[in-house]
């Protein structure tokens, strides 16, 4: 079906009759001439006359056709395939509102392009009033037709992570059978779409890519800081493993415009620690690599000086011939610059140390006396963190009796297992840093089954069995493991996810829980104590709202950088960084990959949304073809006219 971008030019179509009119009006009558004999003329003249007429008719046709194609060029014809006509149903437009859409390409932000594209679709399909959605973690309805576009226009810079949209879209399409045409506008970053989208039969899905063209290979090489571990004396940087031509990188620490420290080159596959003197409580770390984008080569940090904390570790025996639980715990704790450990076998000594400690570990201990239990109860209630590892010497009944009120659950006698099922994790203070993959090599031989209390939190589960659970008691907390801290019950001490989990738990309960949070990600609301009076960003006040618990909450932070919170105790810096969970990975999917995710869908990379959307919806633009044909006909006309005249 032929459609026109500028249909008003079709009113000029009668002009194509102009050559015919001119031909008819200027047609000369043949001169009648009396001639002695026409016998010689007859032989040849008939064919010449036919030739003369044929050429004239041909010239006339060429002129008419040339005018026709000139008008076609201005009218902007487009050819729509048959299948595109048969869209009967509603249309939905999904615009990617994840942080990666903040990226700019050719001078404009991808999010602005997405808004323009949405607007162009709504404009083209004005009668259908398409439903407009945004998506990042999930998706939300913004309105129909112009309302939806207006809602999009009001939205500021995207600040959230996109994850798992493929599945959400599949569900949406299966639940809404009235939707027959879907437009997905996105930069198609790798993390946004992971699973194949199930497109129901009869639904036309069009993917509109923003940003650079996809030539099949990864077009964005982004080397960035994936995560940072902030310590008192140094900061450990873990870089991305996104494709990079540069195999090495180096780090530098900056405080304002002053370069504090820098490192030698490190391999892109390894993390790198940089020493940051304690006096530089806030600043930024820059990564030096040619493929690191300006926005991603920096990590803002803010830290508060944390006094080193001794963690007493109580074990059953005064000495150990083999590597017992205390050995592994000490090794792990001493990896952190915030903590040191003290292995204690004597209960009395442990009770003494407990008064000064903020966290304590008990491994493979038997003989919980009422006095010890009382001290522990009081200590935990005041804010201590107790981490309990049973062992072969542990008597579950004794433990249940002595510590029943602050244990996360009831411990049962040892149970042997033949295999370990998949591990699931739910650790609120880990910021989702740990996944089941970290425990994929966990192998459990035997364990103490634990039936958790209702108020307990199951941190690590293997199938239906709880391997680790936690419960709050007073101001403190108890974390109970079902396996020993040594290698007797399982290989937990050497599993990749265990040391960071233990250290993270210690950090959270010993320091962070009582500190003002100083490191945020883009899109998060900054929490401040009620006494905070103002938060400025580059001198601009930021609105704060009171929370029911007496604190204050800011609007979502959209711009990475260092913020300043001012309170009665002085001012402190707050670092806001880009989201690190893959959103910084700006490498985009190739066309082939997109078509794998969206089987049967059409993909277009758009640069000029208003023009291209119209072409996509209306079909292939034939303007250029018309112009080409016009030029060719013009040349033919000049040639034929010259030939006829000569």
């Amino acid at each position: 079906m032929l459609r026109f971008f500028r249909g008003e030019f079709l009113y000029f179509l009668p002009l194509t009759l102009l050559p015919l009119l001119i031909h008819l009006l200027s047609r000369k009558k043949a001169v009648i001439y009396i001639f002695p004999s026409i016998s010689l003329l007859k032989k040849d003249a008939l064919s010449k006359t036919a030739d003369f007429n044929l050429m004239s008719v041909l010239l006339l046709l060429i002129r008419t056709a040339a005018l026709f194609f000139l008008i076609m060029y201005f009218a902007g014809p487009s050819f729509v395939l048959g299948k595109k006509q048969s869209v009967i149903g509603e249309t939905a437009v999904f615009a990617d509102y994840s942080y990666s859409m903040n990226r700019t390409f050719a001078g404009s932000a991808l999010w602005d392009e997405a808004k323009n594209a949405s607007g162009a679709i709504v404009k083209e399909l004005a009668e259908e009033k398409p439903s407009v959605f945004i998506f990042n973690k999930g998706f939300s309805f913004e309105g129909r037709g112009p309302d939806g576009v207006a809602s999009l226009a009001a939205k500021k810079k995207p600040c959230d992570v996109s994850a798992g949209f493929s599945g959400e879209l599949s569900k949406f399409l299966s639940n809404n059978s009235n939707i027959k045409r879907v437009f997905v506008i996105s930069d198609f970053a790798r993390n946004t779409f992971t699973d194949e989208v199930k497109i129901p039969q009869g639904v036309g899905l069009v993917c509109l890519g923003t940003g650079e063209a996809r030539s099949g290979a990864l077009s964005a090489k982004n080397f960035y800081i994936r995560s940072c571990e902030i310590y008192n004396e140094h900061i450990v940087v873990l870089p991305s493993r996104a494709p990079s031509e540069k195999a090495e990188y180096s780090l530098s620490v900056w405080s304002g415009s002053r370069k504090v420290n820098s490192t030698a080159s490190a391999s892109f596959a390894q993390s790198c620690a940089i020493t940051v003197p304690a006096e530089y409580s806030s600043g930024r770390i820059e990564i030096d690599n040619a493929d690191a984008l300006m926005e991603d080569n920096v990590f803002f940090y803010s830290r508060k000086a944390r006094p080193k904390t001794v963690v007493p570790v109580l074990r059953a025996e005064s000495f150990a011939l083999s590597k017992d639980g205390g050995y592994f715990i000490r090794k792990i704790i001493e990896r952190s610059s915030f903590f040191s450990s003290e292995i204690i076998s004597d209960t009395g000594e442990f009770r003494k140390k407990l008064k000064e400690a903020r966290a304590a570990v008990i491994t493979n201990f038997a003989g919980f006396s009422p006095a010890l239990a009382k001290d522990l109860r009081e200590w935990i209630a005041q804010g201590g963190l107790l981490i309990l590892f049973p062992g072969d010497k542990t008597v579950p009944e004794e433990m249940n009796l002595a510590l029943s009120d602050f244990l996360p659950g009831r411990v049962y006698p040892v149970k042997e297992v033949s295999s370990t099922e998949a591990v699931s994790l739910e650790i609120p203070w880990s910021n989702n840093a740990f996944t089941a993959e970290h425990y994929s090599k966990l192998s459990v031989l035997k364990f103490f089954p634990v039936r958790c209390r209702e108020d307990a939190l199951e941190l690590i589960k293997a199938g239906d069995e709880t391997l680790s659970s936690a419960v709050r008691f007073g101001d403190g907390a108890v974390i109970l493991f079902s396996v020993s801290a040594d290698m007797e019950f399982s290989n937990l001490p050497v599993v990749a996810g265990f040391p960071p989990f233990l250290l993270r738990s210690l950090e959270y309960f010993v320091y962070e829980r009582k500190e003002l949070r100083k490191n945020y990600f883009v899109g998060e609301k900054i929490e401040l104590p009620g006494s905070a009076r103002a938060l400025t960003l580059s001198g601009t006040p930021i609105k704060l709202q009171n929370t029911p618990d007496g604190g204050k909450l800011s609007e979502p932070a959209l711009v990475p950088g260092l913020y300043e919170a001012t309170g009665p105790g002085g001012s402190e810096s707050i670092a806001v960084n880009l989201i690190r969970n893959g959103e910084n990975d700006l490498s985009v999917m190739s066309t082939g990959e997109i078509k794998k995710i969206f089987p049967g869908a059409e993909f277009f990379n758009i640069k000029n949304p208003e023009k291209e959307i119209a072409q996509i919806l209306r079909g292939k633009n034939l303007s250029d073809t018309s112009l080409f044909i016009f030029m060719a006909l013009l040349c033919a006309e000049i040639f034929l006219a010259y030939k006829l005249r000569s």
Partner: protein
Amino acid sequence: MPKISSPRLKSEFLRPEIIAKISRMNFAGKKISEGTVAGSHSSPYRGCSSEFSAFRPYTQGDDTRYLDWKVYARCERFYIRQFEQETNLRSCVIIDRSESMNFGSSRATKYDYARIIASTLAYMIIKRGDSMSFSAVSSGVDEYFPPSRSTGNLVNVLNAIASIAPGGGTNIASAMDAIGSKIKRKSLVILISDMLTGSDQIIKSVKRFIKQKHNFMVLQVIDPAEADLPFGGKYTFVDSETRGRVTINAARAASSYRRQFHQFVSGIETSLKNCGCGYFRFAVSPNPEDEIPEGLFKAGFSFI
């Protein structure tokens, strides 16, 4: 410039300039003439001219004036001396007055040109004492003047040439056959025509004349326009005789037409010359004074 002596001989087609150039011209045909009176042309018969022809034995009744006494002295037998007879030329001028002759791209038409030629020939022939018949033909014999060597005949012929207007169709071959039946003795037949229609029949007729020992001469008159077709644009040509029409782009057809026309007239010329006919093609021009004497010379007339 000589003057035509008799005021009765004045004709618009009789040009003194031409007469002056052809005054010493006579026909030098290969064939002998069968005239009725003595003249300047050789006769098949024995006569009394000064040219010796042969001896023959004396028979009773012969004029004794022609006995050759010297021969009698040598052989004692009577022989009569015979001499060649010189007779006058009998000629017939045929002019084509068909409508096709009434064509002229310039001021003069082909018929006008033909009339000048015919007038000139009539004057030249009769003034030399030869007899001449004249006929105007189209689809038949429209006008015929029997042979005569009198000045009165010349006046009549000139008046007829001046007065006969062109018109009618063309069937010269049948007209020639009709004229042929009227010519009893060997004569010089001169046809003045454009020969555009029925040329094959004309050639056949010419051959019949030649077979009958007549001298035949064709003077073809054509107009430069019909040879060159110097027209541009779209033309509908109407046949002057048949009224048939044909529409062509004259400019585009010209080259092809010229080629065909050249082949056509060349074919006529070759056919006529092959059968011993005198031929010359006149192109109508504003200066007949030069072309007509030259054409007549080339066609077979010679200066005495």
